[in-house]
């Protein structure tokens, strides 16, 4: 075990699989010599050569399209999109192609591949370097969507994603790249893609969250406990397919629910969590199912700290839910 940042854990995960499996390739804009703008792929080109870690032309459509072709022809591509905000030129390739290939070909062709991309706010990136687009993708059967929140999970989920037989969108909370540290096992291990994680036990209010919002929820939970409210925090980590049963169990057990994400509220991922609960165990609910989310506006720059949900907003929702 070594203590690593989330960023180092991902880098370690890439090193680990590239060493074990020569069919794993890493490519994207600036991932080679530069090692990516966040340095997530640092050292890979040096260690594995230009054939296995290389830069591409500035075309997300081409990056994902080519990755699909590689995947169906025996390689295991790990494509990087520099910022999740820039993934939209590849939206068609992801949603129409990668996600539907197995289905439309009756299982003859498949696209087991990973698209890694940093998402979310916290770096003063304004409208186009801060977005959390998970909901745009989670409405797409055939795709998997994974978001880690700890270094341990980041490495384990990434390796599981690379080994998964289906296409996986791996969203990395850039705000946590260097902000969280934790124990990370050496070498190969996986964290399975079908279960959520209870990040903190609690019995009064359960907060469902993922990615960069997990530490925010934890902080709010701590503050709440000072006021005698015992919060459970659940890190969903695989958003699609979701561990629905796990969500419902936690919701039933606690009876008071807050759903938290940094993307805009309207038609966001949180709506699905609320809806699942309202559909399957509404009779257990002792309070409204409350969402805390980014505002329904584009992402601002100077005022980003007002836009991003913080412990104040979560605490407020927790208290309202608890005292309902």
């Amino acid at each position, binding site marked *: 075990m070594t203590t690593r940042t989330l960023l180092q854990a991902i880098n370690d995960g890439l090193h680990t699989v590239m060493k074990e499996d020569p069919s794993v390739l890493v490519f994207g804009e600036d991932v080679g010599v530069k090692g990516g703008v966040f340095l997530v792929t640092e050292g890979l080109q040096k260690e594995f050569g230009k054939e296995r870690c290389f830069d591409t032309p500035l075309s997300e459509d*081409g990056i994902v399209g*080519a990755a699909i072709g590689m995947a169906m022809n*025996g390689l295991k591509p790990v494509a990087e999109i520099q910022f999740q905000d820039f993934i939209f030129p590849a939206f068609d390739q992801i949603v129409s192609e990668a996600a539907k290939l197995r289905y439309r070909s009756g299982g003859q062709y498949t696209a087991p591949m990973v698209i890694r991309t940093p998402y979310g706010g916290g770096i003063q990136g304004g409208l186009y370097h801060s977005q959390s687009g998970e909901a745009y993708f989670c409405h797409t059967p*055939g795709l998997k969507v994974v978001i880690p929140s700890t270094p341990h999970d980041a490495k384990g989920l990434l390796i599981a994603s690379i080994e998964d037989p289906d296409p996986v969108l791996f969203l990395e909370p850039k705000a946590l790249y260097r902000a969280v540290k934790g124990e990370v096992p050496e070498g190969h291990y996986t964290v399975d893609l*079908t279960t959520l994680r209870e990040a903190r036990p609690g019995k009064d209010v359960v907060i469902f969250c993922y990615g960069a919002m997990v530490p925010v929820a934890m902080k709010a939970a701590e503050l709440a406990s000072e006021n005698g409210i015992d919060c459970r925090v659940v890190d969903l980590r695989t958003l699609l397919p979701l561990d629905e049963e796990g969500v419902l169990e936690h919701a039933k057990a606690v009876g008071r629910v807050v759903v938290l994400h940094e993307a805009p509220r309207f038609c966001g991922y949180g709506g699905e969590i609320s809806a699942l609960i309202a559909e399957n165990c509404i009779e257990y609910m002792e309070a409204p199912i409350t969402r805390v989310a980014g505002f329904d506006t584009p992402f601002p720059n100077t005022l980003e700290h007002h836009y991003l949900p913080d412990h104040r907003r979560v605490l407020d929702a927790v208290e309202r839910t608890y005292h309902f």
Partner: protein
Amino acid sequence: MSPNEPLRVIEPDGGVNGYDSRLTEDQLIHCYRTMVSVRVFDEICLKLQRSGRIAFSIPNKGVEATQIGAASVMKTSDWLFPSYRDFGMALYHGVTPLRMMQNMFGNAEDQAKGRQMPVHFSFEEPIRFYSISSPIGTHIPQSVGAAYAAKLRGEDTVCLTSFGDGGTSSMGFHSGLNFAGVWKAPVVFLCQNNGWAISCPVEEQTASEGFAIKARGYGMPGVLIDGNDLLAVRKATEEAVERARAGEGPTLIEALTFRMGGHSTSDDPTRYVPKDMVDYWAKRDPIERFEKYLEGVGLWSPEMGKALYDEVTEEIKEAARQAEKISSPALDTIFSDVYAEMPPHIRSQGQAAFDLARTRGDAEAGDGDFPL
């Protein structure tokens, strides 16, 4: 539109100008037979559609030489990334008419399990005929990825990637050709310029002098050929495949041809295709052209042609009869193949669908007409 003269091999009189196809008699006949099969398959599908027995088809009369000429150069270890009009590529490589008809009927034996519209074929043997996707151009960068993977792994596989004049405007064309150029990927891009993207003529598609010329912007050679001349198509494709196998990278071939029918069975081309254009191309039928050539080398006579046509017709009709008898896919084909393993939520949706059918009866089929 193109100022350059396209490459031609078969002269109007059936003679050839200085190109030795090195095809055996059997191979020549196989090319011919496949062209006739495509034409007959097309005719029969149109009839099946008109009589309401299948929902939809894509006419391809007139473009046989391009698809079969190009496909005939490929080995079964290569990959085809075809367009929806490339029936002949599959037939040439031994996909049976029956397997294709299963798709036209979208039945339980359809390789795509009745999930796609007709003509959206998918085969992985005898050759990899990549699953057709409706969105135009998406398969282009995918084929580059597949080709590059082969190259990285040291295989000598080549990908043949086919698309239309309209397809050159798509983003996949741009990213695909650009990546192929940079990676020197072993791909042959075949742009079938059939004059139209549904009702839009090539002048509305691009201001460039033709499509072959677009190759230079991606650092690869571009070749303009007569797409109704099977041997010209072969010659250009052979050269391109050789370059690809030799590690010299991709080539863009523009084949001039003409779609003699509508865009699809839902389309009425008389609304937009000028009559004189139809007449012009009617005189340049690729099958008649090849017959002249075969006749010259002693392999064809009107009788032989007639006999082959009848034989092929019977075979394809029989395929249609058989395919029509096969039942629809089972209800669970809606729910499988979304992921390698079925997740719980899809399983329970499938279960609910079964239960509902039991308690409230089956869903009723609609009668929507496909417009495109």
